């Protein structure tokens, strides 16, 4: 059993990393990775949202929609669930760290439209995960997202002061770096 869950986790974090392999959630990935502190703040917020959202989506699907035969409403109701969780997270962040709230700015409510979050919720349904598996899958996805976000932010901080030719400065070299990171992560293919 432990092996199953570890495989699930490793799969979500490394092998099928949501950002670099499945190319979901690229908006906050590029937008928030300028500084390491904001990246860490964002990754914590996303972890919280992802875990909670995948749990709530599972519950709402299996105990409300499925029994009523309303499975076709899952997209709308997942969006609703995610929006509520994100709002809740935003309130918590504003209370605990107003600076982080201000720095994250619009990217915090944009977690609502983060395709990775909706993707996790929908993938859980597709793969017929039970509650615990959904939770782990969501948590693993979040960990993978955080890992890549922090790595990328650290690299972008170094790039900011490096001798980058002017046409490449800023987002361009960021994209190139992300592409190279993605290549590296594809090396994990076939691990599980």
């Amino acid at each position, binding site marked *: 059993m432990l092996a199953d869950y570890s495989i699930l986790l490793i799969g979500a974090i490394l092998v099928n990393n949501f950002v670099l392999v499945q190319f979901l959630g690229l908006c906050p990935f590029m937008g928030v990775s300028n500084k390491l502190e904001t990246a860490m703040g964002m990754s914590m917020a996303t972890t919280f949202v992802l875990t909670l959202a995948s749990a709530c989506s599972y519950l709402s699907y299996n105990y409300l929609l499925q029994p009523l035969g309303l499975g076709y409403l899952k997209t709308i109701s997942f969006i609703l669930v995610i929006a509520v969780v994100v709002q809740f997270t935003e309130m918590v962040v504003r209370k605990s760290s107003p600076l982080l709230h201000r720095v994250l700015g619009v990217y915090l409510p944009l977690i609502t439209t983060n395709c990775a979050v909706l993707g996790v919720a929908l993938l859980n349904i597709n793969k017929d995960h039970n509650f615990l598996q959904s939770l782990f899958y969501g948590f693993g996805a979040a960990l993978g997202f955080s890992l890549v976000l922090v790595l990328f932010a650290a690299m972008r901080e*170094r790039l*900011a*002061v*490096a*001798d980058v030719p002017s046409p490449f400065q800023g987002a361009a070299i960021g994209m190139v770096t992300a592409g190279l990171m993605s290549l590296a992560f594809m090396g994990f293919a076939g691990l599980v």
Partner: protein
Amino acid sequence: MRKVWDFHGGIHPAENKYQSLHTPIRQAGIPAQLTYPLSQHIGAPAKPIVEVGQQVLKGEMIARADGFVSVPVHASTSGTIVAIEERMVAHPSGLPAPCIVLESDGRDQWVELRGIDDYHQLDKPALLEIIRQAGIAGMGGAGFPAAVKLGVNPQAGKIETLVINGTECEPYITADDILMRERADEIIGGTRILQHLVEPTETLLGIEDNKPEAIAALLAAAQGTDVEIVVIPTKYPSGGERQLIEILSGKQVPSGGLPANIGVVCLNIGTALAIYRAVTHGEPLISRITTVTGEALEQPQNFEVLLGSPMRFLLDQAGFQAERSTRLVMGGPMMGFTVMDDEAPIVNTTNCLLAPTETELPPPSPTQACIRCGLCADACPASLLPQQLYWFAVGKEYEKLENHKLFDCIECGACSFVCPSSIPLVQYYRASKAEVLQARKDLAKSDHARLRYEARDERLERESLEKEAKRKARKEAAEERARQAAAAGNEAEADPIQAAIDRARAKKAAAQQAASDQPPTGETPPADAAQLAIAKAMAARATNSGQSPLEKAEAKLKRLRERLANSETKLQQSQAADADDTIINALQSALEKLRPKLAEAERELASLQEQNEA
């Protein structure tokens, strides 16, 4: 063999020491003019205690220490003070600094010296005071006042190890080497004084293995004492205080800390020798050994030179050929700086004057881009990351610079030496250190200004509140008084405003009454006092115009006589009452003015009367 450790990194540049070791120490002699900068070290500048034109003797104090971290300055030869003004000094900025200028008289007469025969009799504060008053600052590089370094540091614990630094790791410099060869006894003597002062558990004298004669001399001198001569492998920069301590004890001085934090104190052999001479002979620090070397000189050698001598003085004696030299460096090729003006004086940290030719010390190659090879991190003796420090310095990321321990950099130059792209790394670190310190200062200043501004805001608010409170109190008191008065039935007190209005009205009514009592003049009765006065004047004029000139003159005379009589009575009264002189004088002068007028009026009347009769 005592165990020695090693420090991380280090480099092995060409030593180039043989050039200046052919001859023994030569006395440089007395130059015509000597210049003493008032600030020769990190502490506060000294304050001059002589005046222009004053004669001073050799060894006499010419500037006293100012504050705790400060040393006095002494005249290094006898002569006359000719100026106390800004002069060029040996500083990388090329800016002048306040100096005392002495013109030597050639006699080199010593001031009376008092040496101590047995310093064991003295207690530590007295010994420290002798060292301080002798003007002894470190002779190795930074020039920190020795008495402060040796003084009691309440934060540090007991000093376990006394380290005497005889390594002299920098290429070209041989001043310490030749000093150890020729005056090993005095060095050991100074070390023993320091032992008495510091009372360490062990005393180690570190020396590199490229100085065999010096090692032999020291071993001979240290026989019978517990000073241990430790020979260490030659590597640059083993002579750095922290690096030497790590080699000899295996312990690293903590980041941002002092050697005293791990129970070590480290002094240069030149400083030890100066302490010996100060204590036993009473001589202040007035001379040092300076290596003058480089291919642009005919005879590179070591000089014992009086502090304050111009560099030119030494260069001439060593056969300086200006056309062959590109620049003049004070210090060695790694940590020295270029001196613009060779008239700048020798100070107690001038261990070397380097006059290289173009081929010997070529100008730096053009800087290229950093290739991130990491050779600098391999070479750094302080185990820092020069490459990261470089990128942060370029990007001005001060927080990251501090996190990467920028202030632990000893600016030895090993990283720039190995850099394949010829990047002047040390310059970046020096500039960044200054910028970080400036940013800290600015922050402190702005915090302070904010507090003052807030205090001022508070004060203004407090003042306005107080004013408001006072005004309210006064108003309440007035109301209270009014209430009480109303209760007592006193109309006037109860409402002073109304009372004032009533008074004015009453006055007006009285004036009207007075006007209506007057005989009718055919005009409407005047309504108030002003109109009354106007009416009176008009009536007077009417009577006047009806009179003949004779009658007018008579009337005038009568009025004047009345006035005179009045003034005279007034004067008599004042004199009787013994009033002020001013009043009496005023009355007398008025009287004097009246009398001519009276005489005039009488004449007029007389002439009119004549006319009338005629």
